[in-house]
């Protein structure tokens, strides 16, 4: 029993970076823009979070800076895909390639160093609940913030005027435009905020999870998040489910490794990726077309008014 609780708690921790990335991408995609640069954004977020934490001594300043850098790099994608109407798939890939390269380029001097990072803050009262307390409420603050973000995002998309407008922009930009909404402005803000949140997911990895910086440390988590957005049918709560499922698989295989299993490590390391494919296939086959949640109608298509 104790082992199960440990694994579940570890699942939450290792699922958190993926959760942030998935939530960030949901915001971005709800506006109709596809951002495939998650892997690059997470790496830049991880490096920024780590380096600023180390230099300033403040992990929270590191995380704030990761958000800013994530939003800043996403601006490139926003400009290319919204203003210049470029191919969003290729622009996102460019972002991943650039972010991967730039993080290794600037991160070289930080390789092999560590930081104290974010500490554990058990929630008074809640952490004493049997089982659930240890699984959910015995983590660092960034984990609790992610719970709040899930709830906030759900409320925002369903119940607020701005959330409704954002969905309109992503589904039928022409109609949103006719309603007097600025399609470009909504999209820019969504891409920037979304990118910032993705980068916070990266920062969680280096500032709270491993507390060190390693080249390519995201190991495909950004791409797993892209798949999870589809799994979640753009629904924040389902995103959390998916992220913890993946966190669970990672925690489980690490546990097996530590226990010295006879299964070769590389085969264990494949599990999350295999699971991603399996989940994606499963969800694509039986995807219901929800009205509220589901793929934004004009995801990936540039919008512009024909003038003159």
């Amino acid at each position, binding site marked *: 029993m104790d082992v199960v609780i440990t694994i579940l708690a570890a699942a939450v921790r290792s699922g958190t970076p993926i959760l942030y990335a998935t939530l960030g991408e949901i915001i971005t995609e709800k506006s109709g823009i596809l951002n*495939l640069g998650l892997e*690059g954004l997470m790496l830049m977020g991880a490096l920024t979070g780590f380096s600023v934490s180390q230099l300033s001594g403040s992990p929270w300043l590191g995380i704030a800076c990761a958000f800013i850098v994530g939003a800043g790099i996403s601006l*490139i994608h926003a*400009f*290319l895909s919204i203003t*210049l*109407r*470029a*191919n969003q*798939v*290729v*622009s996102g*890939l*460019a*972002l991943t*390639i*650039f*972010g*991967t*390269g*730039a*993080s*290794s*380029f*600037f991160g*070289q001097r930080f390789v092999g160093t560590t930081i104290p990072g974010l500490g554990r803050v058990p929630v008074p009262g809640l952490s004493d609940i049997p089982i659930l307390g240890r699984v959910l409420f015995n983590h660092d603050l960034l984990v609790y913030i992610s719970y709040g973000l899930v709830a906030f995002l759900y409320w925002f998309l369903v119940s607020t005027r701005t959330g409704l407008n954002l969905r309109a922009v992503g589904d039928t930009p022409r109609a949103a435009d006719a309603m007097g909404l600025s399609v470009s402005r909504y999209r820019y803000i969504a891409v920037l905020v979304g990118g910032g949140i993705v980068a916070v997911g990266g920062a969680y990895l280096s500032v709270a999870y491993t507390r060190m910086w390693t*080249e390519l440390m995201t*190991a*495909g988590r950004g*791409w*797993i998040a*892209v*798949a999870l957005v*589809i799994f979640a049918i753009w629904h924040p709560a389902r995103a959390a489910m998916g992220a913890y499922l993946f966190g669970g698989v990672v925690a489980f295989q690490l546990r097996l490794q530590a226990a010295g299993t006879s299964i*070769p*490590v*590389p*085969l264990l*390391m*494949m599990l999350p*990726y*295999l699971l*991603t*494919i399996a989940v*994606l*296939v499963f969800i*694509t*086959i039986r995807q219901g077309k929800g009205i509220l949640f589901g793929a934004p109608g004009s995801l990936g298509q540039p919008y*512009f008014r024909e*003038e*003159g």
Partner: protein
Amino acid sequence: MSVRIRVERRLTQPVWIEAFIPLFSIVMALVTGSIFLAVLGAPPLQAYNAMFRASMGDWLGIRDTLVKAIPLMTAGVGVTLAFKMSVWNIGATGQIIIGALATTAAVRYVYVDNRFVMFWLMFLAAVLAGGGWAAMAGYLKARWNVNEIITTLMLNYIALQLLYYFVYGPWRDPASLGFPMTTPFPPAARLPFLGTGRIHLGLIIALVLGVIFWLVFRFTRWGYEIRVMGESPRTARFAGMDYVKNVVLVMFLSGAIAGIAGMGEVAGLTGRLQHGFTAEYGYTAIIVAWLARLHPLTVILVAFLIGALHVGGEVLQIVMRLPLASTQMLQGLILFFILGGEFFRRYRIRFHTGEKE
């Protein structure tokens, strides 16, 4: 009086813009890159000079560049094929690895001491394995419309773990003192070198593939159909073209070609499979294909230029102690500028002065 800016679609594309945009993009990327180099305290002009001299300054440099360009050309042609159909095969990396694994398997399990026979055995293994690996993602897309970007990417990570499994496990050379690598391939399983350098037969294969697919897209009905399916799936459907069948076929061919690139790396260049065997080329091949605007012959040329960038990046690492990732960062920047430049190919900006008309 007011000035209004209007964006208009270009009806015709001037010739100068075709050459200007790529060149401008590369220059702008280098200018931006110089800022990053300066941040790390490396004098940019000196760095670029070293890169250019090492990669294209003399025959030795050109030879190194060609060696680097071989997998980029090959995989670039493969990626181009899929992208033509708007099938986003991001999995060249994994397909290269699988091709190399299959080549090694052929050498280990069906070795024949005859250079000609062995070549075709390895070739067949690489083609079937690389193609089959990619066709899995193609089938999932064709059958259930599963997003191929994600499946091909996940297959990259899985292929990488498979590589680790074999070079750390059953295929590790007992005499390698713990290094994760196989025993060297016997001479009959090596691709012949051309001339004195490390340029191997893979170069000829890459050139032939480039020409073949240029001819296919230029002159055959099938090539035309692939292009129509890529540009306008609706039109293709109304014209009765079989999208489902062709997705699988195109993915197979695309992966098979990447597999051949993998064969070239192990049987041509290194002569053994090893941990350090890099398949990052798979991602670079995407850049190559896009810079070449999905033209198979241009791919060859662009692959050479990007190969030069790789050689230059290695020199920066050795001479100026800069991280090898500078190459990748510059590639990302080039791609950004190329994408931005596309806008000016398709649209023009006009400034109107005076009253509202």
